[in-house]
């Protein structure tokens, strides 16, 4: 009878130790939250005071200036649809051009960042740090700096998107390249191929569908990002959005948000279908 009871005691001890750890973790978290609440000037009373303004704001953006519900007069609600659709188109085009530029740069750089394609470890290290820098600095910061250098307009926005895309896609592309089957590479090299042949005939056929899928995913993310770049003067629908939000044109805020969300959802659904087809091909081949 000694064995089970000592086993039971050991079990109880282990459970107690685990419990203590969890409580300690929760305590540390609680202290952090209290401290953070102090710093960010948030208290429970402030939250309760603002509940009224939450509901009234959402009531107002759902109603036209005449006081009617927005859906009762959709034409009045979307009064500026020609202008807004043009701006949305510009936003999409910015995202597209930025993604293409960034994906091209990532395609060039990813081979330098993958260990199986580049023997020079310093080159690998340098390329990886470069890509890391490009994706860690938020694109809106790049956009702010580029607006100062290139002046207002879509150009600084596109460049900011392109740089961020290069960093994000370069990393993903390099990971794909590092996971390829090296046998085709050996085969092509044994026939006396140069570096370009190696990439074209041994590497690209293995990675192309994955690359395309990642680039499409990035395009979708960039559409979302491009919609905010106008806040710092870098083109797209963001400028107009900033205006209507700041000037309290309530119905316009909801109209633009609906337009934006609908566009993002359509792009989302379309790219997902294409990506599934691409990845399906991958599995067959």
């Amino acid at each position: 009878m000694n064995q089970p009871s000592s086993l039971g005691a050991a079990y109880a001890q282990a459970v107690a130790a685990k419990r203590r750890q969890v409580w300690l973790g929760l305590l540390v978290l609680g202290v952090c939250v209290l401290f953070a609440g102090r710093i960010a000037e948030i208290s429970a009373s402030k939250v309760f005071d603002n509940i009224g303004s939450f509901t009234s704001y959402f009531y107002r953006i759902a109603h036209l200036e005449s006081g009617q519900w927005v859906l009762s007069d959709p034409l009045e609600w979307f009064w500026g649809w020609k202008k807004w659709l043009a701006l949305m188109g510009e936003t999409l085009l910015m995202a597209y051009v930025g993604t293409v530029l960034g994906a091209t740069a990532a395609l060039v750089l990813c081979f330098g960042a993958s260990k199986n394609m580049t023997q020079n470890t310093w080159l690998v290290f340098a390329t990886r740090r470069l890509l890391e820098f490009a994706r860690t600095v938020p694109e809106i910061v790049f956009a702010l700096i580029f607006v100062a250098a290139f002046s207002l307009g879509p150009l600084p926005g596109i460049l900011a998107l392109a740089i961020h895309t290069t960093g994000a896609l370069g990393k993903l592309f390099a990971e794909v390249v590092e996971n390829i089957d090296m046998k085709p590479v050996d085969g092509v090299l044994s026939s006396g191929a140069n570096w370009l042949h190696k990439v074209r005939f041994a590497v690209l056929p293995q990675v192309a569908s994955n690359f395309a899928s990642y680039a499409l995913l990035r395009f979708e993310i960039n559409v979302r990002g491009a919609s905010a770049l106008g806040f710092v003067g870098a083109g797209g629908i963001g400028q107009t959005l900033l205006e209507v939000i700041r000037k309290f044109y309530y119905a316009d805020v909801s109209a633009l948000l609906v337009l934006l969300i609908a566009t993002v959802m359509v792009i989302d659904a379309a790219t997902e279908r294409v990506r599934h087809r691409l990845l399906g091909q991958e599995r067959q081949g």
Partner: protein
Amino acid sequence: MSVQQSPGAAPAVAESQLALRKRYAAHFQPFYRGRLGAFFLAILAAMVFVYGVHSLDMSYTRIVGGLGELCAMVLRMLPPHPGSWSLAGIYVYAMVETLAIALLGTLLAAIVAFPLGFFAARNTTLNRVVQFFARRSFDTLRGVDILIWALIWINVVGLGPFAGVLALFMSDLGSFGKLFSEAIEAADDKPVEGVVSTGASSLSALRFGILPQLLPVLLSQVLYAFESNTRSASIIGIVGAGGIGLILAEQIRTLELQQLSFVVLMILATVSVIDLVCSRIRFSIIGVRAL
């Protein structure tokens, strides 16, 4: 590629080549066959790109002129310098405020998303309609950029870090809802069946069947999100929602470039420290066999 016959080939070779052609018909057809769609798609994509470059005013002279200006700016950014000690103190305080916003926003979103995730998961939802609407609401929240949420919340609660916390909360609620519900769907049913076989209620099945599988995954996702939220929290100040972004935007507008590069480096260093700490905690929670 079309196959070429070597000039001196014997008839037997030609015949075997015919047999080969017959057997591997797919490999001997002209290269454009079956690729016409992809070809047209590539041309279309290139045309859209060229149209975009033209209509978005990306002229050669503008790019070259801007690049010259950019180089001059980068040179003026070096070396990074905070300006003065008191300014450095202000930056550090703003960075701490940024971290506070990130922590509160992430935590709030995780707490609210946790119960909602069950409604959006196929195996634990009430019915298909609830699941559909839960999923679509999460998509909607995610479809709006965090800066837009920040602007809207500034209208509601005024300038300051509270708007930032709410903005982070909104966009994280969308991504957590999706991630949590996917994690719930991926959970193994067998523990649930085991718990149910003892006569337990469905709530106990959730608590003892699904939750133990789920918690480590969710915690690691929350920790991962905290790291990326530190980055987001450092930019929402650009529109006035608290944190270090306000300082960032001011420095660029007044062209105090040495201080700008100091602040950017400080943000990058903080983010990488947070990254390190989070991955440490993540490993200690879920062990080495991380996701």
